[in-house]
């Protein structure tokens, strides 16, 4: 099968990779690049754990045709921390026990980052809306919602990552 070259930016660095026809972005990131932070949950758009940012906006990588990201800026959970320093959202998730099994966490973090980048002071309702495409089977959502609000309050959610 034909392989096509695709170039894009991932967490600030340039990447070039070959994709197969019909390959989705999640598979390309995990198998082609080796970024294992976006997870495979359903492959149907319903769980949200594969959420990545494309040009700053949340997209479901399992439903994105890999070759359509040519020239675009991608962000995954691998790009959140700077060195040993966790992103404010990651720190708040850890402090607030917002991850149990952790499978939904990368998608939650990406959805939350997209929200805080646009709206640094969201209401609780806006947080609920922002993560409405992400399913968590463990926490009951409350610790996640609280962690996102905490990260917003700490104010440095915007300063790095």
């Amino acid at each position, binding site marked *: 099968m034909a392989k096509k070259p695709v170039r894009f930016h991932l967490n600030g660095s340039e990447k070039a990779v070959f994709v197969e026809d*019909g390959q*989705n972005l999640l598979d390309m990131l995990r198998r082609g690049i080796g970024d294992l932070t976006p997870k495979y949950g359903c*492959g149907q*758009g319903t769980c949200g754990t594969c959420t990545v940012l494309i040009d700053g*906006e*949340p997209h479901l990588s399992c439903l*994105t045709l890999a070759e359509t990201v040519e020239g675009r800026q991608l962000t995954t959970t691998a790009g959140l921390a700077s060195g040993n320093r966790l992103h404010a959202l990651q720190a708040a998730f850890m402090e607030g026990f917002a991850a149990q099994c952790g499978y939904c966490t990368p998608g939650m973090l990406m959805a939350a980052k997209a929200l805080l980048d646009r709206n640094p002071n969201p209401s609780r309702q806006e947080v609920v809306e922002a993560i409405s*495409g992400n399913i968590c089977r463990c926490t009951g959502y409350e610790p996640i919602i609280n962690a996102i609000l905490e990260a917003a309050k700490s104010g440095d959610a915007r300063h790095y990552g």
Partner: protein
Amino acid sequence: MPVRVETYERLDEAARALASSRTARFLGGGTLIMRAVNAGDQSFDTIIRARDANWSAIRAEGDGFVIGAGVTMAAVVASRDLVFLAPVARSVGGPAIRNMATIGGNLFAASPYGDFAAALLALGATVNLAGSSGRGIPIDDFLRDRERHATSLVQSVSVPRPRDASAFRFVKVSRVKPKGISLMSIAALLPQMGGRLQGARIAYGAMAPTPIRVTAVERALEGQSLDIATIERAAAVATEGIDPPTDALASSWYRREVAGVHLKRLLSAERR
């Protein structure tokens, strides 16, 4: 069999490629098509895409708007022109889906999807196909013959602007909030002249294989004032001539039982 992807710079080239193959599909936002690819759907073997930027433009024309088929739900929500459609676009999926899902793809989405298409049906939109210079197709006809249009590329949709903000109303009924799939959606265009309804159009989503007009309700409303008696008469015929589907979300019986209740609430809603 793996799928092949063909990319074209221009929409008319993509339209020709699509027209020449029964087993090709055009890529909108991909939320349904990539789901089918992931599931190993064998009903198509080619995906056709276009890079044409015109395809996702919104522009004013006459007393309405031309919305490119590639416009996403998020772009509708963000548009200052399409405020009347923002609540409809906001009801589709979660934030990531809205960044991907296009209005063109929504026209083809099988029930229970198609909330945006139901709104376009009530608004009396026309569907413009790529490569056909003439007039657009009324959305009623397009949805009725949807199967036949599987090899045509939708370029844009022309939507007349409702006369005033309260003349267009929409509600999506779902069990999971804020993001759930429709049990039904109702869109209502309620233009009034001298206190009487004139040219009312009511559409349902998720009550048939495609969004449908609700002619019995329209007849009950036409020429009347939108008072309690009229609303009661309209609600009484809410499912006349309609055979709602049974799916994982609700039975046909349930849909039939609740349709009148939701229609009544929508029609009696104060200006929102």
